[in-house]
């Protein structure tokens, strides 16, 4: 486990530089100092090793792309193409695949409660915390060479700019221009590498404002909710494409999560 003291000291040392960037940086820094993220990682380890489903096995033999059961660096190499399913998958999509195949659970049962709340995080959320923690410090290298990986990136890019719905919103309506805010929230431009890197490097994350641990699939879902659109289906190609688009845009950034956010 990482030393909280070390990162706090680093944050303090960098504080003047951040303060110059944004009046909210100081708040962001203070909010991230007491980190309950490790608690979610521990819960995730339990969920990873828990025998369940019709086959009564754990997820420990789940292949996240680096071989069965290999956690180290797995998150940093996602999303990527998987030959056994012939599709590009992000972490949550792959976990769901392992739940339905390894454990023999139905998709319906495994996705009954994918987004938790402050009192009770979901299995998917704690697993995401546990697995992403094994990529801490590693550069993000999502798949970019397989034709389906390139197609996912391109679809994600098109979706990002696609305006639709009763309020004519696309992702770019909020995340398309520099130096903008919604209320007091600063908005990263999520198709520019310099803005996307620090964001993608810190998901999944514990959100101080809601006291919840949240994943990228949740983030896609909640953006479309606020865009007044219908609901993206959990782990659908559209959600994976958007996550692929943003992760490839952020490619190479050292992974700093699972992190704390506003």
């Amino acid at each position, binding site marked *: 486990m990482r030393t909280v003291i070390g990162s706090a000291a680093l944050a303090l040392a960098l504080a003047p530089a951040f303060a110059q960037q944004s009046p909210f940086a100081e708040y962001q820094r203070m909010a991230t100092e007491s980190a309950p993220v490790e608690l979610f990682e521990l819960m995730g380890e339990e969920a990873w090793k828990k025998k369940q489903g019709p086959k009564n096995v754990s997820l420990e033999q789940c292949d996240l792309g680096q071989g069965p059961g290999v956690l180290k660096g797995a998150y940093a190499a996602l999303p990527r193409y998987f030959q056994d399913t012939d599709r590009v998958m992000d972490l949550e999509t792959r976990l769901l695949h392992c739940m339905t195949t390894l454990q023999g659970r139905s998709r319906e049962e495994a996705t009954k409660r994918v987004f938790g709340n402050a009192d009770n995080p979901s299995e998917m959320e704690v697993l995401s915390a546990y697995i992403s923690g094994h990529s801490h410090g590693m550069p993000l290298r999502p798949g970019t060479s397989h034709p389906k990986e390139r197609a996912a990136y*391109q*679809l994600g*890019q*098109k*979706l*990002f*700019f*696609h*305006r*639709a*719905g*009763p*309020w*004519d*919103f*696309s992702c*770019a*309506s*909020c995340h*398309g*221009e520099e*130096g*903008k*805010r*919604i*209320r*007091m*929230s600063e*908005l990263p431009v999520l*198709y*520019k*590498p310099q803005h996307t890197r620090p964001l993608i490097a810190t998901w999944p994350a514990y959100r101080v404002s809601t006291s919840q641990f949240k994943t990228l699939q949740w983030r896609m879902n909640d953006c*479309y*909710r*606020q865009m*007044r*659109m*219908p*609901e*993206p*289906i959990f782990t*659908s*190609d*559209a*959600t994976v*494409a958007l996550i692929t688009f943003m992760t*490839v*845009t952020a490619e190479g950034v050292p992974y700093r999560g699972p992190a704390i956010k506003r």
Partner: protein
Amino acid sequence: MTMRRFLLLPVAVTLAACTTAPSIGERAKATPSDLEAVTAVLKRDFRARGQATMDRVELDPVQRLCNLHADNPPADVARPLEEAQLKAIPFPTGGLIGDWKNGEKIAQSGRGAMWSDKPGVQQGGSCYNCHQISPKETAFGTIGPSLAGYGKTRGNRPEIQRYVYGKIYNSKAYNACSQMPRLGHSKTLNEQQIKDLVGLLLDPASPVNQ
């Protein structure tokens, strides 16, 4: 705006000739077949929830135009669409300045049209999400221009009232690819609510104009 578009045009044409996919950090321009493909993906990968029904993924002519031109359409195609949107605004007769106090509440509320909102509940305009309006509200967004002192500098003669009402009812009547939702056109806000927002911006008694 027009100038920049004009200068960028030859560059865009050259790029389109050698590649269809924009590189990282660039804004994508969609082709008609892109729009069809993305709409098909939305139909396959999204589902109706609450009041957010699947008909919401269908594009109207304004959305089509803006998607095809990366929000920067040539004036000769944008103008007829803006005119059609303007023509469809049902302007009420008489004064348009409603109750600014109620307008402030509507401007504050971000409720409405989401799958998590109860259908039939009074919807808000989410105005403060993007605009500075009353000096009393410091938690304002900056996607749209500041509206502080709006009526103080412009007055509130009938043409101004009409412009503000129309802009809130359907922002695309004045700027085809404005980022602002068409709050009347989308049936988010009703006539009285829009009048109350006009009051918030134009009533000399409104805190906006103090």
